[in-house]
């Protein structure tokens, strides 16, 4: 290591960010509610729909897809919702409420680094969920996915951007942990409904089908469904996400309070 100034500054940044990430990771393991929701819940859903898919083989409503095939994108998006809507904002509001963000802000390290560490950690968890769902459905339950890597990566990035930024809106607007829990709980079930966990847009009819297609959880499911079967995602799904993500991000940044 040279004693070059920018070099040492860079090293310092990595030092404290690595330390923050390590500490946040340990805390997440000590209080594993978020992990259980973000990774455990998708695993349970995968097993349930994997078994249903084996019991009811074949073709759902003439689409050529099995029950599990249809649920692969839904389960992934539910994983993102659990992490981004249930876990992330409640943790951040709790940190704000207990003065942790303020305490960090009294050091030369900006508290935004703490937020970045939380985001990074949840992104890692999301990645784990994606891998479990893809490989679990293929290797354990024999789903015949044909993942189109470019479309899949694009759909995943946009899905996570939409859902996590919506979670940050909750963190920004909720004045207390109680309100945050209530808001994220309500939003959680609404998004689960719109993702198609209980009802499929293809069979509910209008106007609910359209609402689902253009919702912050339905659009990601639609884009992902096409990209795991080697098809081009519908432009409307991509555009919908491209509209949501910056709007949510803007609101979250505009209204976020550190204290």
């Amino acid at each position: 290591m040279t004693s070059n100034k920018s070099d040492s500054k860079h090293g310092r940044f990595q030092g404290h960010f690595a330390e923050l990430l390590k500490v946040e990771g340990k805390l997440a393991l000590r209080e594993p509610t978020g992990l259980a929701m973000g990774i455990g819940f998708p695993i349970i859903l995968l097993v349930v729909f994997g078994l249903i898919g084996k019991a009811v083989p074949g073709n759902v409503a003439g689409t050529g897809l099995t029950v599990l095939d249809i649920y692969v994108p839904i389960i992934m998006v539910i994983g993102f919702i659990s992490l981004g809507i249930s876990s992330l904002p409640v943790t951040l509001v709790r940190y704000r409420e207990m003065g942790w963000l303020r305490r960090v802000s009294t050091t030369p390290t900006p508290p935004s680094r703490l937020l970045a560490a939380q985001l990074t950690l949840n992104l890692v968890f999301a990645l784990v969920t994606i891998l479990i769902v893809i490989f679990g459905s293929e290797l354990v339950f024999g789903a015949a996915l044909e993942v189109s890597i470019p479309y899949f990566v694009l759909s995943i990035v946009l899905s996570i951007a939409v859902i996590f930024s919506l979670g940050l809106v909750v963190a920004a607007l909720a004045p207390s942990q109680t309100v945050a829990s209530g808001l994220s709980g309500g939003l959680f079930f609404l998004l689960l409904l719109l993702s198609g966990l209980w009802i499929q847009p293809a069979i509910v009819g209008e106007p609910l089908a359209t609402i689902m297609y253009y919702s912050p959880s339905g659009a990601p499911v639609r884009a992902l469904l096409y990209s795991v079967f080697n098809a081009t995602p519908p432009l409307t799904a991509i555009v919908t996400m491209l509209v949501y993500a910056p709007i949510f991000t803007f609101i979250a940044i505009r209204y976020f309070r550190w204290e």
Partner: protein
Amino acid sequence: MPPRLKVGEAVKLFASFYPNPMDPDGLLETLGIEKVKNSTYRRLSGGQKQRLSIALALVGNPKIAILDELTTGLDPEARRETWALIESARDRGVTVILVTHFMDEAERLCDRLALINHGKLVVLDAPEAIAAHAGGSRVRFVPSKPVDDKTLYAIPGVKEIERKVAYVTVIGTGDLAASVIDSLARIGVHVSDIEARGGNLDDAFVKLTRDDTSRVQERLQS
């Protein structure tokens, strides 16, 4: 603080935030909390929590540390330990600005003391100087026979008199004990059980804030 964060982790984390931090382990040892290094924050006692916040304030090697109401709510032993820490920080060359309502704390720890009343600086000086100037010294004794107030007020330096059972306490300035003994001996009164002490900050605090408040009231009335 996150309730499940461990003491050692917190100090190490904060050390990573600063360019030239102190050695986290050494600091924990100085603060006497190396035993609870692996305890989570929620398991700490009030005194340990307080010492951890001091650790987090000092780990960055600051030139100045502002500590606010540090010992409020601590038991006497934890208070004493906290005082020792502040003294050790001071001895290492850290300028400590301590905000407190406890006069004994200020008297023991501070080199210079500012008294602020209703947002206004009333006095700024060494604690001993403030105490001596504003509180006056007190001499308590038992006279061999009753002495009336008039005689006592005639003694040079005496400003106030308090009586409790057989004890007489005079408050005033100058070499009070010597003049009390001298003057009373001259009229044939001997004093026993004598106890003299310099002015203390408690007295000074009351006197200075009362003066200040009454001055404000006067100004309001005029």
